[in-house]
């Protein structure tokens, strides 16, 4: 039965996170001293405090020591956190989803036994997935075979019962903080693309796993590139990294994460993070509009500003509906088979539409601020920048829409 009622627990947790974000995160996150410098190191204090509130293990099953929250609840809470600070929310969202995916769905009992208590008990324990998924180029391959020629992954060479891994992976999310990595490598040297891959679990302190320098504000030749992601990321290098057969996640030659299906939760949770950024800018604009006086009245009373505020309201409301629907659908496949929900790729729709909406919201919000919208000691320019990163990323640009079109057309590879 269609029902949009939230449980009292959900509302209470949301309130808790809301207050935490407003009272503890925001002040630090938008302090001029943090806003002005180009480099913005992860706010470890806030990360730890949020972890203590249970966000890190939100999706991990209760049996394993987590809260066992569903994807919808996770999205709801991560959104609140992201209103406070986007990187902290991104890092926690990633660990929360990977916690569920790795421990509750993919690990063998032995692997779980090896890692789970440390993960559940250590507020600083984060997780990272280092690999590519089938979706990387998928939109660009609209109506064509997936192009996988430049899927370059580290190799694993069999030595007796062990494997020796070598290679490099660029820009692994959470790498600077992760204590456990799920790393995709090529175990079959004859295969190409996404074939012949396997996933290994590698603890951070395992010999041969090197986490390189965290990606900072600028990089590339003559600083020709600039950081373009949320959370934190670093390249990792595998140098004669020796692992045993028991470190393989699932079976050799199959790559449970490469299909991307298990990672849809991650993209929906990232959409919730985006929503939080949109909200932060929107809240700021509403507050400012009610206070700023021009033309003989508060600017909120100008039709032009009212229209911008209303547009933001609509965009955020529609995005949240979609994120929640996609989140709920991931935990309720039966609602697709009984035709309560359509067979459209809801997670893709959620991430693409939310990214676009939030980007527009941050720009509209900045317009309300006039010149204050571009000053580096003020938060708006940060939100605008966050919105650009959200809108123009690999998985949110125009190409991602083509995945939706393929689904509508019934095209299958």
């Amino acid at each position: 039965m269609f029902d949009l009622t939230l449980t009292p627990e959900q509302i209470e947790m949301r309130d808790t996170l809301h207050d935490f974000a407003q009272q503890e995160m925001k002040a630090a996150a938008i302090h001029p001293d943090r806003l002005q410098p180009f480099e913005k190191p992860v706010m470890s204090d806030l990360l730890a405090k949020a972890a203590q509130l249970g966000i890190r293990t939100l999706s991990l099953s209760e049996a394993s020591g987590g809260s066992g929250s569903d994807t919808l609840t996770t999205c709801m809470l991560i959104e609140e956190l992201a209103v406070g600070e986007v990187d902290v929310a991104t890092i926690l969202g990633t660990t929360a989803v990977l916690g569920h995916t790795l421990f509750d769905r993919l690990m063998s009992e032995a692997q779980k036994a090896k890692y789970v208590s440390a993960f559940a008990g250590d507020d600083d324990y984060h997780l990272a997935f280092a690999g590519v998924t089938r979706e990387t180029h998928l939109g660009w391959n609209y109506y064509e075979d997936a192009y996988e020629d430049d899927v370059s992954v580290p190799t694993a060479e069999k030595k007796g019962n062990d494997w020796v891994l070598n290679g490099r992976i660029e820009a692994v999310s959470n790498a600077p903080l992760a204590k456990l990595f799920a790393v995709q490598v090529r175990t079959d040297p004859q295969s190409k693309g996404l074939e012949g891959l396997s996933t290994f679990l590698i603890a951070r302190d395992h010999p041969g796993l090197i986490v390189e320098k965290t990606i900072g504000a600028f990089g590339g030749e003559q600083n020709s590139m600039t950081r373009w992601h949320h959370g934190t990321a670093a390249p990792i290098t595998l140098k004669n990294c020796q692992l045993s057969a028991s470190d393989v996640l699932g079976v050799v030659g199959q790559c449970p994460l490469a299909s991307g299906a298990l990672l849809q939760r991650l993209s929906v949770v990232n959409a919730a993070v985006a929503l939080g950024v949109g909200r932060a800018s929107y809240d700021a604009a509403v507050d400012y509009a009610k206070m700023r006086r021009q033309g003989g009245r508060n600017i909120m009373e100008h039709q032009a500003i009212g229209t911008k505020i209303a547009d933001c309201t609509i965009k955020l409301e529609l995005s949240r509906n979609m994120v929640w629907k996609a989140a709920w659908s991931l935990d309720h496949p039966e609602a697709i088979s009984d035709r309560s929900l359509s067979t459209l790729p809801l997670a893709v729709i959620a991430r693409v539409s939310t990214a676009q909406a939030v980007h527009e919201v941050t720009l509209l919000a900045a317009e309300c601020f006039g010149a204050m919208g571009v000053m580096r000691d003020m938060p708006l320019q940060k939100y605008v920048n966050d919105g650009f990163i959200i809108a123009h990323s690999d998985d949110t640009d125009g190409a991602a829409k083509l995945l939706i079109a393929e689904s509508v057309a019934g095209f299958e590879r």
Partner: protein
Amino acid sequence: MDFSLNEEQRHWQQEARKFADEVLRPQSLERDQLEGGFEPWDWEIIEAGSKLGFRTLAVPKEWGGPGADFVTQAIVMAELAKGDSAMSKAFSQNWKWSHLMSKSCTEDQKERFLKPFLANHRYVMGRGITEPNSGSDNRMPPENDPKAGYRVRSVKEGNEWVLNGSKCFIANGSVGSLFFVDTRSNPEVNIKQGGTLIMVPKGTPGFRIGKVFNKRGWRFYQNAELIFEDCRVPDANVVGKPGTGSVKAGKGDTTGGDIFGDLELAANALGVCDEATTMGTQYARTHQRAGRSLMDHQLIQLKVHEMHMLTEALRSFVLRTAWQHDAGEHSANAGFVMNYSTDIIQRVTQMNLQIHGVEGRMANARADKLVRDAMVWTHLAGDTVQRVKILKRLK
């Protein structure tokens, strides 16, 4: 009808393009990436450009300047902006006050200020209008709130004016040698009757620079706070007559728009759009995605197409408006083209960013810079008030 440039216009275009290619663009990103509000500024760039005439371009020939016409000014701003939009603005900001001086200043004032301006490669100027609580209200004074608008107080004492108060976001604030300061000589009436425009040179006792603003875009370009504490200025520094309001005093309103300022932002935007379009087209032609040239993807083709299309539309509009200024034609186009450039620069720079995409979770820093520079237009050239007020110029 004739759209071709004359020899002098082409000459300036070539000079500006060369300077942008050889001096501005190579330093653009480096200066942009310096922390702080003041730090990106570089006097050597100003000096180098000044020697080529870019600082004094708009000073009339009879005063020893190049006396370039509006078409030339538009072209030079666009060419310089291709190298760096903020650097282009740092030069053209001076033209605005060259215009004002030649139109509104007395011979004595010209002697005292225009001459040193011409003589010193590091002499730059600015104008102080905006204050913390008056931005839009200066642009379009509200009829229902006569006390709205700037409040820096000016009181006449003998042959002097005493100034008190502060201005914010003032262009060239941290580096200027001379400021045109909008003051309120009568706070009881609206700024059109109670406003007096006064020239305040650097070093005047009681006048100092406060905060230097640290911006997301146009980082090279300086904006600072100006603070006046019993600052005394001779009566001879008043532009026009006291209490005539700043627009009227500045005689800026003879062709149906701020005769230069509006065009300035549009022409600068044109340069940024040209740069973004060139970057995006070049990138699409030389990079691959999913095993095919980017230019073979319709998604990209449509973006490249739109960038060119909008840039050419903007170019047509800028050149026509510049010509209208030279011809002294009444029109609201200066305002319209400025607002228009706001919409176009945002769109074109964003498409360039999209075409470049993301690699290793990093984006092209110059594509990002163009987007950040473009954001400045939002409040400077295209907010609601700036759109609405132009309607009054329509016949």
